[in-house]
């Protein structure tokens, strides 16, 4: 069972009062409790079960502009006391940093909590096994699926309390139901794997098992017997599961941490055209039941909706208290990063997008970590499908795609097929003229 608010409050009080007694001028604390249960199935047979019970506390103490933190999963009072003592000792000898402080009291969250982020539904292990077996059964009904890498179902429930010495104390429960199916296809000596994944706060919102299995199978089969293509400059279509990655890159490039340090290619681009004029990017924390929704960030600051890109122009950064002070801006509640981040729909349909050029390469997977936020260089391994005249022709693999994000962002066209499946979501994306490395 996850712990209730009273239990979390008791732990928070122990730490906050001891910190104060030992001379800290300010303190903030996060106490968390979560329980998750996961079932793994492979080749339609139970492969494993996993149950995790997690408790944790993170305490930050301040002495004026000095600061130090401790974290622990051992919530025995004697252990907590020892750790608080240690935190205070370290704090005293840590150099001052003029930007250290608790967040602005006026920005503390104090609204209604009506976003529906907790589904108390509990599935028995049998129900979880049945769900995931049904997904694998469906995948295996495709005769090119010969094996699975494992499929799983997970249920996570958590509760937390965030409190600070300025009087903030609030927390709430959240839930997450997750299922994935990863299958292996084989044909003519070629072996490929692919997956489908679903994750929602409410059990009723996740994909139906049959859909999960059939989509995974379809992905894996379509990758079979790939060709390697010649190096060339070609326009790319990014499948929705890849196009959303560009939003994550964008988000890290406009974090106030990177902006303050100058370690981003989007520094000094505020109020400038970063994307073409048809692109709008929003970050909304108040969508009911959505994966990325939250009431306040990890400092207790209420979430406001941000129009980050409007008609291609950069409107705002993602700001927390510490880095905000460095750039003379107030926090906009993004100490924990983005909430529900998405590109607004474009004006073209998917089919118009894939017919927009005679020859296009459809990217379904990228591998590697080839994104350089500092200068915008982008180079990753990829696989996908060649499209000619709107027809999907043959799979392509062992290629690289490369460009610079400054150019990539200016050359994006979006379809109108946005769905809110994850916390970061994008429609299908067309990027004009990227360099493919191949034969």
């Amino acid at each position, binding site marked *: 069972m996850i712990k209730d608010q009273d239990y979390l409050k008791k732990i928070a009080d122990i730490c906050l009062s001891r910190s104060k007694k030992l001379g800290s001028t300010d303190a903030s604390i996060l106490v968390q409790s979560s329980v998750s249960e996961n079932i793994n199935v*492979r080749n339609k047979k*139970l*492969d*494993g*079960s*996993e*149950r*995790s*019970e*997690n*408790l944790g506390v993170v305490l930050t103490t301040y002495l004026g502009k000095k*600061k*130090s*933190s*401790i*974290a*622990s*999963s*051992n919530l025995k009072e004697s*252990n907590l006391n020892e750790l608080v003592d240690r*935190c205070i000792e*370290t704090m005293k*000898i*840590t*150099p001052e*940093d003029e*930007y250290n402080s608790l967040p602005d009291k006026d920005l503390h969250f104090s609204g209604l909590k009506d976003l529906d982020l907790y589904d108390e539904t509990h599935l028995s292990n049998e129900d979880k096994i049945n769900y995931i077996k049904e997904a694998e059964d469906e995948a295996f009904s495709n005769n090119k699926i010969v*094996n699975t890498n494992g499929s799983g179902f997970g249920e996570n429930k958590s509760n937390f309390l965030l409190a600070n010495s300025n009087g903030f104390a609030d927390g709430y429960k959240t839930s997450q139901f997750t299922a994935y199916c990863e299958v*292996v296809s084989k044909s003519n000596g070629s*072996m490929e*794997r692919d997956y489908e994944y679903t994750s929602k706060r409410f059990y009723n919102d996740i994909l139906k098992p049959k859909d999960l299995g059939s989509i995974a199978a379809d992905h894996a089969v379509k*990758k079979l017997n790939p060709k*390697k293509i010649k*190096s*060339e400059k070609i326009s790319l279509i990014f499948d929705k599961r890849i196009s959303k990655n560009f939003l994550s890159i964008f988000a890290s490039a406009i974090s106030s941490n990177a902006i303050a*340090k*100058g*370690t981003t*290619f989007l520094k000094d681009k505020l109020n400038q055209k970063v994307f073409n004029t048809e692109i709008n990017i929003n970050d909304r924390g108040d969508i009911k039941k959505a994966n990325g929704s939250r009431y306040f960030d990890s400092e207790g600051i209420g979430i406001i909706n941000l129009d980050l890109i409007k008609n291609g122009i950069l409107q705002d950064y993602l700001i927390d208290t510490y880095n905000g002070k460095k750039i003379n801006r107030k926090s906009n509640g993004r100490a924990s990063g983005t909430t529900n981040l998405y590109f607004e729909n474009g004006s073209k349909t998917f089919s118009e997008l894939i017919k927009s050029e005679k020859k296009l390469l459809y990217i379904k997977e990228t*591998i*590697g*970590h*080839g994104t*350089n936020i*500092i*200068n915008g*260089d982008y*180079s*990753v*391994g990829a696989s996908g499908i060649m499209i000619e005249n709107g027809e999907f022709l043959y799979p392509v693999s*062992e*290629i*690289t*795609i*490369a460009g*610079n994000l400054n150019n990539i962002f200016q050359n994006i066209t979006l379809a109108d097929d946005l769905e809110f499946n994850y916390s970061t979501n994008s429609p299908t994306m067309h990027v004009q003229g990227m*360099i493919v*490395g*191949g*034969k």
Partner: protein
Amino acid sequence: MTSLLKNSELSLEKADKIVSETLNSCDDGELYVEDTKSETIVLDDNKIKSSNYTSDLGYGFRAVTGDTVAYSHSNEISEKSLKNSSDNLKSTLKNNSGTYNSEIKKTNQKLYKDIDPIESKSMKSKIELLNNMNEYARSKDISVKQVTASLLAEKKNIEIIRSGGELLSDNRPLVRINMSVMVEKNGRKETGVYGIGGRQDYDEYLRNDNWKKVCDEAFRIANTNIESKHSPAGEMKVVLGPGWPAILIHEAVGHGLEGDFNRKKTSAFYDLVGKKVASKGVTIIDDGTIDNRRGSLNIDDEGTPTERTVLIEDGILKNFMQDRLNARLMNTKSTGNGRRESYKHVVMPRMRNTIMLGGTNTQEEMIKSVDKGIFAVSFGGGQVDITSGKFVFNCTEAYEIINGKVGAPIKGATLIGDGPSSLKEILMVGNDMMLDPGIGTCGKAGQGVPVGVGQPSLLINNMTVGGTQL
């Protein structure tokens, strides 16, 4: 021996009883208890940005029968909590029964000292070191615009309680010193990153002002990249430098030789034991027994002593890396590769220090033999798709080779290849085998574990380079 349970509400006797009673009818399993203390101090943007100390205590209780694994972990260490876990394990395995395999090799292996690297250096001197690193790096050149330096130390004590009361333990220190430098010149920005570490006290790595060399190296890489030109795209010959570039070996073949993927027949290598998978002269080992190395362990996380496992010998595939579960199902013995990130994670076969042994060629002759290609000296992260065998990694320092000579530095290229075929494309193996500086972390199924790599210079006939210049 005093158990990690000594200060908890759970006595060792009670724990023993619950473990034995739960695992009696299973093939394998154990109670794994872990007490980890870690400390991270970060200097960023001229300030000590954070000092975090973490104390984590918990257990993971595992029962295995056939190929089904039941796992339950918690950080509430009490009889009640362990009993709940036991009930949970039993309910998963209720339809199976097995015979407990109590055989486990003994060892007196001591590859690192039982030290506490957090306490053995004072907070004051750690802060002073970071400040010195910052000032020194910034003094290298006015083009240095940003410096991030960090110190990470950890002391992880583990205990494995097996059915029948057998108790195995290991105390594992680990430190890492990192430096990142950003250089800005003529409107361009580039970074250089370097680090060192292993299973000794900080001071062992700081002798003779060694921290200056860490700063020098980070600055050198950033400064090299500021002059870099766009990378070519397409297939070409690649010369790899010695040491850290062995993450190519780690990605290209290492993961594909882990027991689980081969037992499940999802690895591109699963039916290739005894077959030629690499050029003659290529020998690859996975060694958990090198003193003080980041990837070394006295025993793995199932209690099996680590060993030096020969994976590929003179081009022929010899062995996979095994944990107990996969070894049992494949009728072989564990190679001491059963590892987990923490008590919160299930054991899997994982690499330790993965090394290609040296050959006879010189780096000079490799470069001389290339008309058009690239010379890759250092890499960032890599990744592999086990099933298709395709792997990538990102160059953080590389140069073009033209007519047998090293030319201009090139920026941010990705290399992509096919694991099984790229090993056969190795044309020369260098005589300059080197281990990495002690910075690697390998990720698999969401779990990160410290690893090491090593290799000599290599000449690879043909790899795809992902750049922007056609």
